[in-house]
């Protein structure tokens, strides 16, 4: 039975698609917050003061996340004795952690820093620092979850049969 990941080309398309999905998920909540800030809903946070560095951070982090997913999936599919589901389940778990994290980090930042009497611009450094630390933490957690779900890399001796993950139960 041929599946999407049976061929090298299929795996390439799948990993690129997964990377793009990861990139979008990483980018979307923060981009939404920046858009809301840019139109003045959270005060006169000038786009030039916080927006440009923030957008660069968003893009950089999202690109890094996308690349990590792409390379991680490519390596995972290359491991012997892994069924496609093993890879996808690990990816799904990590993506969920990432999605929840990147959605809640901006909310948490606004919740902690919003002040009726002051603009968020007054706390630009704290906002950016929280964003950076929060996203690095979420990314790291997502990676650990993926590793945990996927299991340790399997070394197989030539000619031996790799042990499927399911036997651990």
């Amino acid at each position, binding site marked *: *039975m041929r599946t999407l990941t049976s061929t090298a080309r299929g795996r390439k398309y799948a990993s690129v698609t997964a990377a793009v999905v990861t990139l979008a998920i990483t980018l979307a909540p923060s981009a939404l917050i920046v858009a*809301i800030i840019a*139109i*003045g*809903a*959270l*005060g*006169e946070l000038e786009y030039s003061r916080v927006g440009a560095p923030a957008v660069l951070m968003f893009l950089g982090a999202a690109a890094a996340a996308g690349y990590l997913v792409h390379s991680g999936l490519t390596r995972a599919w290359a491991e012997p004795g892994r*069924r496609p*589901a*093993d890879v996808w*389940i*690990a990816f*799904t*778990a990590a993506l*969920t*952690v990432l*999605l*929840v994290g990147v*959605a*809640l980090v901006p*909310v948490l930042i*606004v*919740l902690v820093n*919003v*002040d*009726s*009497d*002051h*603009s*968020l*611009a007054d706390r630009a450094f704290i906002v950016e620092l929280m964003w950076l630390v929060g996203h690095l933490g979420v990314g790291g957690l997502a990676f650990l*979850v993926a590793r*945990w*779900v996927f*299991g340790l890399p399997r070394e197989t001796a030539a000619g031996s049969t790799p042990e*499927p*993950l*399911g*036997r*651990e*139960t």
Partner: protein
Amino acid sequence: MPEQPAPEWPPLARRQKVALLLSGGLLLVLLLLLVLVVYPWARWTEDFFPGRPPGEVLQPEAWSVTDDSISFAVLGDNGTGGRNAMDVARQMARTYQQTPYGLVVMLGDISYYGGIVDRYEDVFRKPLGPLIDAGVGFELAVGNHEVEENPDSLTEVADKLSRFGLPNSYYKVTHGPVEFFILDSSLPLAGLAAAQDQLAWLERELSASTATWQVAALHHQLYSSGEKRAPDPRVREALEPLFIDHGIDIVFYGHDHFYERTTPQSGITYVLSGAGAKISRVGISDFTAVAEEKLQFMMVDVEGNSMTVQAIDQNGVVFDEFTVSPR
């Protein structure tokens, strides 16, 4: 080439099942959190969502003020520049189309999330543009609640006075048959020497007043059933005796973000009209006549010895109406 048989895969490992279950659960929790907590907070408690400024074109100076009649609006805590603020302002413009009025009394907190110098366009010009263009005048009760802790607030008060061309943070102004005593309710809280000056001034002006109607407007609440915070007793202790002794007819204030009207307290009706953009929780107290968690503003029509006061929500529904007679 014959197709190879599909490998026989064992069942999913426990950790994989746990991961799938937790993923679904996490997504569900996220969804519930966003829908039940984050959205209501951003939409109603803080008014973060952007809104479309009202586009109504109003006939300029269509109102009439005589020696014994006037209509005016009262608006509190509307300074977000967000969707709710726009909705309330739009309804104020529509109300003007039906009942023109030439005055809006603002009860403070006209600029959230930044100073008035930076946010003037977003929080004042855009939402209230139709009324401004129609020539409607504005009186402003300042009263930044952070004066105690934040020295910048004094600068902000000065900026607001300058922007609105007001003589002082407290002043008296007469419109038709009504004398308005616009008070700075921060002063009793800030412990400044000016607090005593204001009280002495108020007593002097109230004693000398011969107008049919005396209306007080300030930011901080004297009576409130808000679940978030209790009124600071210093404001009531400082002002209420003067109101009672010198015949104030009605008192408007904001600060809390809901609507609450008291039953007459020593003959005075107190109206909390602070839901010009945000909404917070309100309970019921023994002094409560009506309490509503609704975006709103007030319309006041004075005709001779009768004052009709309406609380109007952002859809134009009058959800409270009462009359007041001069004391």
